[in-house]
């Protein structure tokens, strides 16, 4: 559907010849973004959550059709536990960088993957992020299994976000049995556990499939 305005791509800023272009922040990308096909009508999102260093960025990069992007969200001082500051000038916030990627699944639907830190101090972020999401894929590094506890706590506290566990393997990981992991992570019997290699696209996609299948079965109701 060739819409009228789409013939000319976004043009450079109108000539403000008095101003120096050098004002642009150094390194600001001049190239055009990778736009979605005009046919896409809906976006869905999946959160990729887990401790630092567990492979979130790697997985997003493996699956994304665009160069993964970073964006920042700020959290209020309350969420970082600073309570002794009053005026706006004195407030501090925590800025969280989230990376995300995109894959167009059909002419109609695009999927976004948002990498979200799971620690308790970032929970405020989740309120908006989780809204309308398909679910969360929880990356777990079995060498630091405790690193996933706060993520799982948050998911249980929310209670409304379907999730699946993807165990990301590192060279020195010990291979736990699914049952041992289920017990260590205190998971419900129906929470999927899959193994993955976040560096592999097909392995990462398989983990996402496990999550979506789970979300679908929850949505369809108990059978």
């Amino acid at each position, binding site marked *: 559907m060739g819409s009228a305005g789409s013939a000319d791509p976004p043009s450079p800023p109108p000539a403000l010849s008095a101003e120096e272009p050098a004002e642009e922040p150094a390194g600001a990308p001049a190239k055009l973004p990778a736009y979605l096909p005009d046919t896409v009508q*809906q976006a869905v999102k999946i959160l990729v959550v887990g401790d630092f*260093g567990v492979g979130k960025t790697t997985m997003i990069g493996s699956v994304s059709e665009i160069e993964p992007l970073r964006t920042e969200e700020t959290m209020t001082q309350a*969420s*970082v536990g600073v309570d002794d500051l009053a005026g706006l000038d004195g407030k501090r916030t925590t800025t969280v960088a989230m990376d995300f990627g995109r894959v167009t699944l059909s002419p109609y639907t695009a999927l976004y993957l948002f990498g979200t830190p799971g620690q308790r101090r970032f929970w405020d972020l989740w309120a908006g992020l989780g809204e309308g999401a*398909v679910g969360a894929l929880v990356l777990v590094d079995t060498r630091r299994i405790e690193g996933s506890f706060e993520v799982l706590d948050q998911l249980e*506290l929310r209670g409304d976000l*379907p999730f699946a566990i993807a165990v990301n393997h590192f060279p020195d990981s010990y291979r736990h049995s699914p049952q041992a992991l289920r017990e260590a992570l205190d998971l419900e019997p129906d929470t999927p556990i899959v193994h993955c290699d976040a560096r592999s696209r097909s392995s990462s996609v398989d983990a996402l499939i496990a999550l979506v299948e789970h979300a*679908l079965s929850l949505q369809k109701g108990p059978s």
Partner: protein
Amino acid sequence: MSGDQGAHQDGDPSARQSVQQGAHQGSAPAADHPTAGRTGDYHDSAVRPYVLTRGRARPTRNTIGLDTLLVVADAGKPLPPSASRQARDLLRMCGRLLSLAEAAAHLELPLSVAGILASDLVDSGHLIARSRIPEAGRPDVTTLQEVLNGLRRLS
């Protein structure tokens, strides 16, 4: 500084909590984590006054999310002279279909600021927001099935 001061104490949802204590020092202060400094996943900073958004912290409509798809409504419709440079940049960025998150990332705007600007541009008829999954809702069975089929085609 220390991540410990940030630990929110509201609600201990599960038995995991007790186990977690032992690992707490390893996981909470991100600065101690080997990858935290390198990846720079977060940093603390003074609040920048929200001049751009005229002091508002939230969009006027809460239907704009980071996965909301935006596209220019009417390429010819001019912005009022009072419009900020950031609003102009956002409108230009959305000359074709793009999510709010992508537009914000390319423009290096914080998501919350980009959301408020986008919301205003939708209200003023400059941008169109394509449907997103309803607030507090989950994607319906049809949508989930379509996502599943799409992922299976990739694998």
